[in-house]
C-alpha cells in the first residue's frame, strides 16, 4: 500500500494499493464510510453485519476483480475524525468476516470530514490511476445515523459542505475520474431527513437515501443496495459515463 493525502491536507490521509500490484486495466473505486459514533450504540453489530454482507455481495459481482474498496469509520474518538479500516485494495485481499472487528460506538459525528475524506481520497487515488492509463470510476457511500454534531459553528469537522462540493466538481472539470457517484445514507435518521437533505444539496452529494428505522431487514436491504450499486457502477467503467438506475430507495 502507498499513502496519500487529499489536496495536500495532512489531516486527510488515505492509502491505496501500489500500481505495480494492480493486475486489471480498469477499476471502480468504492468507499464505504461508516458512522461509529455513540448514537449507533445498540445496533452496532447489525451495522457491522450490514457492512460485511455488502462487501461479500461485492465479492460475488462479476466485476469483483475490478473493484478496489476503501472502508473508513468516522467519530470524534479518532484522530482527525477518521479511521481507515483499510485503504483502496482488491476485494480478493479482504476477508470481511475476520478483517472487520466489532464496532465500538463512541464520540460525536464529524460527518463533513467523513464525506470529504471519502470523496477526496477517491478522486486523489483515481486521478493517480488515470494518469497511469487505468480507466477509473468511483462510488462513495457515507452511512450515518445523524447530523454533523455538535452542530456548526462548534462542529468537529475541518471540512465544510462547500469543500466537499468543490472536491466533487473536480471530477467534471478536471476529468479526474470517468464518473463518481456519491450517496449519503441515513439509517435511523428519519428525524434529521430535512437537515441531511440540506447537507446533501450543500455538499453536492448525488443522492440522499433515508433507509428508515433500523431493523435487521432494513440493514440487509442496505447491504444489498450497496453491493448492487457497486456492481452497477463497475459495469460502466470504460464507457465514460455513470451508471444509470441506481435505486433511490432501500
Amino acid at each position, binding site marked *: 500500500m502507498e499513502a496519500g493525502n487529499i489536496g495536500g491536507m495532512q489531516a486527510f490521509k488515505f492509502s491505496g494499493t501500489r500500481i505495480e500490484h494492480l493486475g486489471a*486495466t480498469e477499476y471502480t473505486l468504492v468507499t464505504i464510510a461508516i458512522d461509529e459514533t455513540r448514537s449507533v450504540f445498540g445496533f452496532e453489530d447489525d451495522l457491522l453485519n450490514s457492512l460485511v454482507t455488502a462487501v461479500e455481495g461485492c465479492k460475488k459481482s462479476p466485476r469483483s476483480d475490478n473493484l478496489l474498496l476503501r472502508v473508513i469509520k468516522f467519530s470524534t474518538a479518532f484522530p482527525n475524525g477518521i479511521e481507515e479500516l483499510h485503504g483502496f485494495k482488491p476485494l480478493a485481499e479482504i476477508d470481511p468476516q475476520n478483517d472487520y472487528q466489532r464496532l465500538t460506538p463512541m464520540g460525536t459525528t464529524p460527518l463533513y470530514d467523513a464525506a470529504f475524506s471519502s470523496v477526496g481520497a477517491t478522486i486523489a487515488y483515481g486521478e493517480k490511476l488515470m494518469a*497511469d492509463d487505468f480507466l477509473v470510476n468511483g462510488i462513495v457511500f457515507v452511512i450515518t445515523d445523524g447530523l454533523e454534531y455538535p452542530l456548526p459553528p462548534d462542529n468537529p469537522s475541518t471540512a465544510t459542505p462547500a469543500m466537499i462540493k468543490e472536491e466533487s466538481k473536480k471530477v467534471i472539470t478536471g476529468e479526474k475520474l470517468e464518473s463518481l457517484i456519491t450517496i449519503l445514507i441515513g439509517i435511523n435518521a428519519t428525524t434529521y431527513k430535512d437537515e441531511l437533505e440540506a447537507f446533501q444539496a450543500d455538499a453536492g452529494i448525488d443522492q440522499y437515501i433515508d433507509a428508515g428505522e433500523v431493523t435487521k431487514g432494513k440493514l440487509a436491504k442496505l447491504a444489498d443496495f450497496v453491493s448492487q450499486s457497486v456492481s452497477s457502477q463497475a459495469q460502466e467503467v470504460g464507457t465514460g459515463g455513470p451508471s444509470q438506475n441506481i435505486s433511490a430507495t432501500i
Partner: protein
Amino acid sequence: MAQLYTDHHFHIGSTHLTSGKPCQDYANSVVYNNAALAIISDGCSTGGHTDIGSRVLALSIMAAFRDHWITNRDALSETVPQEISLRQEIVSAGIRQLLNLQPQDMLATCVYAYISPNGGFVHVQGDGVVIFKYQNGCIEVSRFEWSDNRPFYPAYNEFGLSNFIQAHGDNLNNLRLSEEKWMRKNEEEFIDCGTANFTLSEGIGGIVMDIPEKLLINLEFIAVFSDGITQIDKLDWKSAVQMFTAFKNTKGAFAKRRMIRGIKDTQKIGKGPIDDIACAVVRVELAET
C-alpha cells in the same frame, strides 16, 4: 546488465467487429530465465481461420524461443533467427495436423523481438512496425510493407512458396519488401530517414534487425506492432505510434493500459483502429551493478 520486462495487447478492429469476424491479430510476451520474447502475429483477412493460425504461429515461436534459450543462452549468433524459424515450423506443422487445420488457416505474419540481457534481434516475417525508443528520448520507427499488399507468411515454407514467388514476379531478386524509416528526437517532428528495399529472397528469409548489447543498454524499449497501427481512423500512423507507446507508467500491464487508453482516445475522433491491432513490448532497465 539489462533487466527485461514485457507486456502485450491486441484488439479487434472496427471492420472485423462490424462484419462479425474474430480478431485475427494476436500478441504475447514473456520473460523466461532473464531473456524476453515479445511477439505479434497478424492473420490474413482473406485466409481461413487465421485467428487460430496467428495464435499457433506466435505460440510456436514462443515455444521455440524457450527451447532455444534454455539450451543455448545465446541470442546474438547470426543463425538464431533461422534456428527459431526451423523449430517454429516443426511445432506449428504438428499442431496444424493435430487440429486438422487447413493451409489457408495458417496464413499469418509475425514480428518478434528475442532479447537477452546481452542483446538480441527483431525478426520480421511478413510485415509490421518496429519501434526502438532510446533512453535519450529518441524514437526510431521502421514500417515494413510488401508490394501489392501481398505479404510473406511463414506458413508458405510448408506449402505454397512457389505460388507466392510467382505472384511476386517469379524473380527472387525483385525488390518487393520496403522498410520505411522515421526518427523523432524528443518533441520534434518525425524525420523521414528514407526507405530501404529488400528482395523477394530477403523478404522470404525474414528481415533481422540486430540489437547488440551496446545498443540494448541505450534502449528504453523495443516495441513491435502489427500493421493495424498504420490503419487508425483519422490519425497519421506515426502519431499513432507515438500515442500508443507513450507509456505513462511502466509498472504492471503498461502496454495494455496504454493501448486501451489510446484506442479509447482515437475513438473520440473517429472509428479507432480500422484493422485489428497487436502490440508487444520489451522494456529495458539497466540493473545497478
